[in-house]
């Protein structure tokens, strides 16, 4: 009679499949990772049932709880031309380095008078300016936000036309506002859009969680 021999060492487990899977996941996450941009303000958008996903290419006006407006737009060339036009209009001159630095800023919310300081500052000064800033002015006497939007939009249109970008990928305007913002501010911003004949835009929301209601 033969006895069943027990192996002396601990049973070995083949880990190859697990390791394969782990690396597969790593690859997946690396490829899909979408790092959050450095945002000047935290905004908690209201929720909705909408299932439309925000298009990639947007001109964004962010509004925080205090009603301060911040502006952001993609595209180096577009931003360069926009800044130069704005500088001309508001009699602010920018050096070549200023312009280059401006093209890579994520989002800004300062009046034109402070813009040079903001561009030249390092991350810390910028954060401090953002903290103390009153946002981009948008009242009818000093409508800088309207000008940013108009010039930015204009440059973007030119850029899209010259580069033959298909119409469905064209830039849209979006408002990203905190749920606690007074509607008055949003109404004003919509008014600014309408003054520039921009009548179609997006409002950014979050997915609705039904239990909150």
């Amino acid at each position, binding site marked *: 009679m033969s006895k069943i021999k027990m192996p002396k060492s601990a049973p070995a487990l083949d880990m190859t499949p697990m390791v394969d899977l782990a690396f597969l996941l790593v690859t997946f996450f690396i490829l899909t990772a979408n790092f959050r941009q450095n945002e000047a303000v935290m905004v908690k958008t*209201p929720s909705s049932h909408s299932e439309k996903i925000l298009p990639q290419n947007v001109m964004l006006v962010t509004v925080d709880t205090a009603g301060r407006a911040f502006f952001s737009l993609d595209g180096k060339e577009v931003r360069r031309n926009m800044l130069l036009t704005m500088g001309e209009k508001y009699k602010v001159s920018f050096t070549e380095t200023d312009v280059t630095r401006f093209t890579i800023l994520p989002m800004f919310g300062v009046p034109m008078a402070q813009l040079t300081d903001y561009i030249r500052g390092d991350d810390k000064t910028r954060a401090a300016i953002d903290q103390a800033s009153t946002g981009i002015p948008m009242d009818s006497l000093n409508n800088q936000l309207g000008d940013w939007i108009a010039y930015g939009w204009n440059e973007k249109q030119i850029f899209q036309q010259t580069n033959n970008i298909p119409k469905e990928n064209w830039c849209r305007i979006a408002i990203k506002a905190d749920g*606690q913002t007074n*509607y008055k501010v949003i109404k004003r911003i919509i008014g600014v859009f309408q003054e520039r004949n921009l*009548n179609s*835009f997006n409002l950014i929301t979050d997915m*609705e969680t039904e239990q909150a209601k």
Partner: protein
Amino acid sequence: MGQIIESGGGGHGKGKKRAKKHGAHIDMTPMVDLGFLLLTFFVLTSQFSKPKTMEINMPVKPKDTLNTTKIDDETAMTLLLTEKEDRIYYYYGKFKPETSILKTMDYSKDGLRKVLLKRNETVIKQIKELKEKHSKGEIPDTTYKRLAIAAKGDKKAVFVIVKADEKAKYKNVIDVIDELSLVAEVGKYALVDISPAEKELVKVSGM
């Protein structure tokens, strides 16, 4: 962890050492550790919920006042939003300071949604039928879209006017638009400024 297991290589030869049959084994532990570390990092930093969006189309500013939409007594409904975050004031038809009866509801399922669903019953029914036909494959995509838009834009369909005062919160406006366009299938709605008379009415009502 993750080691290549080696079965005994040589053993038959008498005293003579044979070269191992297997290649030298590599300890994979550090690599695997790093792999999992990266995995954890990317899992934790990745954003899953992409922001969603609603599309709003405002009317082009009319050049003359003749072209403006007429408010129909039958189908119109006006919602007044104020700083009170749990109350919506509303009335039906045209605004007449003396005779308009102000009612209130809240933002919950049993408030706003119930009122809207009841008010827009016929359109919702039509759209439901269309959806059913569409899912069964009786009507193609384009026809479905066209008919749905037609149903929403019908003369008998509800026309909702949203008026928010200065102190209303953005969140409430979004909630209302959300409820209108995505739940109650209201095709015609407008964001309009509140008039002083209406403000007065809300004040007087004391609700």
